[in-house]
């Protein structure tokens, strides 16, 4: 009659009590993002695979978002949190425009993102954010965040599933870690690489991560934000992007202050 046996009303020995089966509100949807700042431009990129465990949920899910004419945000982690976080950021930007009749600046958006993230300190957004764009002084900038709002401005940052694969590579190539200048040569300065170099670093980062990490692949979206007046010759034109890559200019979102945003897309391996 095991079927009708009553369970004990209390458990004196907690180790024999049923393990509580609590709902876990989080998941990890894989993928990777990165951003690198140049002198007068910024590059923000992510792959497009969304996965859960060994399942590829979709080969195209957006992780990089154009917020204003000079700011782009990349999110990584739990995609539902990421999408809803971006939605809240965009909502706040809209209210800012209603109130001030101008778009919010990069460093203000960075501070606002900290506030929004920390506001959920005790039920965090499981999202790693990287913000890139053009600062008020016209310089390219990258801000990186942890899920509860710690943030700093950097020359480059990788996050997500393949962070541990990509960040050391960027440390070496962008911050010149473990490199020695030639005797008598000028010391290295981070954050001054030309666009063509940075694009190569981004592409190599993602193709390598695709090879070595199962959660990275399918496609790549690279946003390039350029300060006003800057030449586009090093992005648009024959022979600059490699085979299979495609570039388009995203029109101004606002009243167009002269900054320009380009989207470079490229397929990645799908296996």
């Amino acid at each position: 009659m095991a079927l009708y046996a009553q369970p004990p009303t209390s458990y004196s020995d907690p180790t024999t009590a049923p393990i509580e089966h609590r709902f876990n509100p989080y998941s990890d949807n894989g993928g990777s993002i990165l951003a690198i700042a140049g002198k007068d431009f910024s590059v923000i990129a992510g792959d497009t695979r969304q996965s859960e465990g060994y399942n590829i949920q979709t080969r195209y899910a957006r992780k990089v978002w154009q917020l204003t004419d000079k700011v782009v945000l990349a999110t990584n982690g739990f995609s539902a949190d990421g999408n809803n976080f971006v939605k809240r950021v965009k909502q706040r930007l809209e209210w800012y425009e209603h109130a001030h009749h101008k778009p919010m600046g990069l460093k203000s958006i960075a501070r606002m993102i900290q506030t929004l993230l920390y506001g959920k300190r005790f039920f965090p957004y499981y999202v790693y954010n990287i913000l890139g764009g053009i600062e008020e002084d016209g310089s390219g900038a990258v801000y990186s965040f942890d899920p509860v709002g710690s943030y700093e401005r950097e020359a480059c940052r990788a996050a997500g599933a393949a962070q541990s694969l990509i960040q050391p590579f960027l440390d070496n190539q962008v911050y010149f870690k473990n490199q020695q200048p030639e005797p008598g040569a000028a010391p290295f300065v981070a954050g001054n690489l030309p666009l063509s170099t940075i694009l190569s670093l981004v592409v190599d980062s993602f193709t390598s991560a695709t090879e070595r990490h199962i959660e990275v692949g399918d496609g790549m979206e690279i946003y390039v934000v350029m300060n006003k007046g800057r030449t586009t010759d090093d992005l648009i034109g024959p022979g600059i992007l490699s085979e299979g890559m495609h570039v388009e200019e995203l029109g101004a979102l606002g009243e167009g202050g002269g900054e320009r945003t380009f989207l470079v897309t490229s397929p990645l391996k799908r296996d």
Partner: protein
Amino acid sequence: MSHHPAMWKQPSAHSSFNDYATFPLAQTQRHSAISHGATQHTQQPLVTGTSVLGIKFDKGVMIAADNLASYGSLARFRDIQRLHPLGKHTLLGVAGDMSDYQWLKKELDALLRQEEALSLTDSHPSLSPSNIYDLLANLFYGRRSKMNPVWNAVLVGGWDKNKKESFLAFIDLLGTTYTAPTLATGFGAHLAQPLLREAFEAKAGVDGKGPLLTQEEGEKLIDDCMKVLFYRDARSINKYQVAIITEEGITISDSKSAPTEWSFAEGLRGYGAQTQ
């Protein structure tokens, strides 16, 4: 914790009864500490539906689900419909907890009636498939954020009248959303999705820009996948319906069965009682 159907309804190792897992254990109820006073949320699904499949074809989208609602391993309700139309051009296919599904139907039907009434006054068209999908995504994410999930995985299929294109997307109890030309929930994500993708890409190419499957090809593909699922998913039944959503509207087929082949079982040795 995994939300995968394989994890549903598995009795705890410490259970003192129901050793054969004939019905799901309501485990939290036996927690004297939290069963007192505190609001009880759905901590696990009880009566459940298994996989839902969806695929885009050249004139729209089709969604399939079988007619079974299980109570643990018991095939409890064998004639329930898990495809639910919302208006003229949107349809849900629902897996997971069937009482949450019925609640969802009630809420969405009420919302659509209200929209219908409003459109009588301003002639504005009702919610599009993507509008309904966005609402569902908010609902599911909102409930998960209150630690009170709607325990379902849902495929939304539809036809967007303005964009003149089909719509197919997924939502689950975490509020996770995504869209793809072929989709499957639960076991279907393991067993059917590879078949769906293979057939889709064979015609449309990996970029999806080639010709899509025809309705006939799509239905054949769905039939094959439902058969595979019936063979290998113990919580499935060989009785299912396929919904077709096109510009003209929605049609939901009568229940049908896939022809199956079991004669190979005669030759199997090594399982159960055998004389030789």
